[in-house]
């Protein structure tokens, strides 16, 4: 997943509502003065945490910049709720969801003038997956046959031994057929493979990249609607329209400036005064009392994001895990409506399933009554849980990280809600880890002595992305070590199913199965509060909660 935007802002102390890893530096159109240079739009950006290489961007800051610089085989159409449509690809076909033949449109060019060919994809994927290159998203290629030949792991984790040299520099599942056709063989059927292909990591790379990756880091060359001009750390990233862009969604503005701010409140001040044209994260200070709606009027945009928040039970810790009745009792003791109202000003909305609405295949209500607040039923369930021989811990800890993301308020509210519901019979306490690093390290090492907050932001808008990585046995983000054979089988069936509609239905059935064990309690999904300046029109927000930089236009005045 991409690290969610929320996760990188310190909330709480009004003083330091400073963007953490994200934001710094000021920026104005280089024209200076008040108004932006006539043909440029200024959009809120944040400092990428990694070099601008598609396979190294796993967070929104780098991700949104790269999305404007690159176009993949498919793209997520903001006009059709993020449904994937072919972009560089003219056809992606498979009979068995295992062997995929991908045909490319001819005439697509990189920003350096070279043509986008099949080998640009194959070389890029091989390079990105290779473990010596240490790309953050290297494991995205794990479905491709021969991945283990290019990706080796340290045999003793963090220990003194080093990972062995990979056997090969190419995956045998990737085959170039001709300049505009290549074939991908997966190690097992993956019906959503074409949907995944719109993710930044699957972007093509120009030949010049392989000659000199260092130069590329300084000046990325993509094939997207915008090309890179220059950047100043913590201040701005400037891009301009790529005139030879071949895709359906060419840019309408000539210049795109990502302005980076140290803190959201200053960005908001600039938005109100028209020096910033778009921001997708109105700060809490402006959300309270709906101040932003009075400030911005018609220029305020409300929407939703594909971000899902939950509380996870560690299955490896039997004292906490208990039985299904126990976990359902906790879930039914959480007053989601009041919490989202009072703490988030309705900026987050209660959810009754494990998939954020708005993604392909999402179906509300998978969780049924177990995700609604019902103190009576909760007490009843607790009694049943005890009857079946489970002794609840004297104190149930709900862990969160205190340094960023503003999780203190809601975890405390959840803890209070549970404690009050059970009249002290179960005492839930929100317990912080000082930093996100320590929090994640404890989760990854499976050492949680309580339940803990979890969140998920979709990488691509499909129900599969909310299930496979999180709840399948041994999946990369299944950090509670949840395992359910029936669920695994259902997910496998869905992966294999060639017909998209049938496959979605199978995923929905799998989602509904989660209600039986309730290993993760769904809480809410994120709303979107964005705003734009009077200088721009035709402002659309992508399913990822970001500005659609290709359709936005400047007001001529």
């Amino acid at each position: 997943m991409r690290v969610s935007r929320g996760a990188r802002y310190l909330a709480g102390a009004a003083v330091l509502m400073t963007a953490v890893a994200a934001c710094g530096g000021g920026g104005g159109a280089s024209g200076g003065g008040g108004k932006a240079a006539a043909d440029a739009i200024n959009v809120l950006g944040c400092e990428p945490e990694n070099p601008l290489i598609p396979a190294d961007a796993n967070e929104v800051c780098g991700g949104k910049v790269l999305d404007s610089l690159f176009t993949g085989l498919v793209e997520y159409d903001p006009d059709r709720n993020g449904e994937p449509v072919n972009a560089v690809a003219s056809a992606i076909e498979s009979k068995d969801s295992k062997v995929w033949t991908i045909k490319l449109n001819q005439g697509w060019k990189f920003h350096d003038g070279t043509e986008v060919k099949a080998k640009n994809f194959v070389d890029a994927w091989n390079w990105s997956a290779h473990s010596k290159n240490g790309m953050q998203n290297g494991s995205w290629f794990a479905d491709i046959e021969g991945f283990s030949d290019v990706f080796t792991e340290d045999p003793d984790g963090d220990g003194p031994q080093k990972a062995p040299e990979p056997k090969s520099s190419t995956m045998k599942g990737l085959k170039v057929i001709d300049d505009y056709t290549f074939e991908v063989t997966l190690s097992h059927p993956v019906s959503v493979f074409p949907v995944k292909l719109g993710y930044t990591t699957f972007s093509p790379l120009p030949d010049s990249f392989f000659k000199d990756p260092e130069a590329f880091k300084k000046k990325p060359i993509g094939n997207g609607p915008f090309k890179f001009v220059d950047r100043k750390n913590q201040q701005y990233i400037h891009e301009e329209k790529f005139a030879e862009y071949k895709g359906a969604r060419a840019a309408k503005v000539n210049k795109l400036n990502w302005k980076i701010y140290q803190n959201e409140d200053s960005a908001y001040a600039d938005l109100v005064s028209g020096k910033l044209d778009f921001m997708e994260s109105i700060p809490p200070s402006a959300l309270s009392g709906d101040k932003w709606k009075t400030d911005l009027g018609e220029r305020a945009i409300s929407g939703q994001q594909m971000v899902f928040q939950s509380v996870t039970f560690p299955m490896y810790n039997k004292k906490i895990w208990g039985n299904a009745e126990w976990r359902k009792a906790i879930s039914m003791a959480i007053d989601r409506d009041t919490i989202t109202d009072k703490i988030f000003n309705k900026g987050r909305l209660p959810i009754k399933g494990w998939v954020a609405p708005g993604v392909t295949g999402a179906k509300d209500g998978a969780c049924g009554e177990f995700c609604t607040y019902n103190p009576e039923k909760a007490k009843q369930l607790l009694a049943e849980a005890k009857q079946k021989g489970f002794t609840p811990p004297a104190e149930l800890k709900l862990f969160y990280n205190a340094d960023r993301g503003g999780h203190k308020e809601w975890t405390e509210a959840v803890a209070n809600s549970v404690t009050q519901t059970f009249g002290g019979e179960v005492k839930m306490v929100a317990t912080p880890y000082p930093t996100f690093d320590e929090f994640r390290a404890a989760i990854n090492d499976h050492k949680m002595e309580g339940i803990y907050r979890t969140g998920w932001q979709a990488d691509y808008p499909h129900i599969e992305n909310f299930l496979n990585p999180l709840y399948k046995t041994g999946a990369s983000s299944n950090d509670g070590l949840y395992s359910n054979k029936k669920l695994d089988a259902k997910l496998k069936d869905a992966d294999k199913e060639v017909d998209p509609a049938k496959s979605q239905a199978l995923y929905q059935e799998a989602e509904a199965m989660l209600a039986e064990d309730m290993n993760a309690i769904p809480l809410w999904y994120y709303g979107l509060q964005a705003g734009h300046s009077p200088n721009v029109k035709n402002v659309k927000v992508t399913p990822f909660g970001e500005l659609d930089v290709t359709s936005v236009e400047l007001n001529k005045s």
Partner: protein
Amino acid sequence: MGRYTLRRLLQLIPVILGTTFLIHFLVWNLPGDPFAGRCGERPCNPAYIERMTELYNLNDPLIIQYGKYLLNLLQGNFGEDFRGVPVAETMAEVWPNTVKLAVVALSIEIIIGIGAGVLTGLKRGGFLDNLVMISTLFLMSLPVFVIGYLLQLTLGLQLGIIRPTVSPEMPWSELIVPGFVLASLQVAFTARLTRASIAENMRADYVRTAVAKGLPRRRVVGVHLLRNSLIPAVTFLGTEVGALMAGAIVTEGIFNINGVGQTIYRGIITHDATAVVPMVTVLVLVYLLATLLVDLLYAVLDPRIRYE
């Protein structure tokens, strides 16, 4: 004086070595794995962690880590931060901004602070004295962020006199308001220190002698009185130079200035020690040089002070 200065400068070397070691040790040994939090809610790709660990020699024992770091440093190589941006580049971008802001703030402190102190110290109990005393009390009791957001809101958003945030080119004119915000507390202290010191020295023997000699008032105040009375203010301002640079986190944040304070803060929060170590080292240098300068200034201001 020359030998004294040289001795003080030589003392810098062990101090620098000690501080870099301590800072290096502390920031790299913050609890938690520096890379555990860099991949959101999923564990990082092991290949990524391995690459980064190797890049920063984190598998070596601490002393060797530090030795390798120091060796690179001596060759002028500051390394790259976690984002792959050379630290030297960050330093070159960030330091001028901070110095510019500090210069503006320091000028405001000197002009307004010392000016107000002298005027009120000469004429205690008057209208101006009361005004300065009350307004400085007001400034001292307000936290910096209140003043910052207040000025940004009123001057920037409501009246539209200034840009709410400073543009990346950092023109001097846009730095006046942030400079004032940063200096506000120190202005108040400087004014009060100078006032007290002037008031006290007004009664000193040498001032009475100077007046009795029939010197013009301007000379009595400007040369005899002021020189001696500046020592407390200079001591204070000297130590504040460092604080202006490191302590501008809040002001830099509000006015969106890409400065040293923010960079260090970000580095610590994201566990990225690469920029923190050299930045803090330079800050330590600034502190040491500023105190040296203050000590030397004493001798200039007060002829009774001599260094051998």
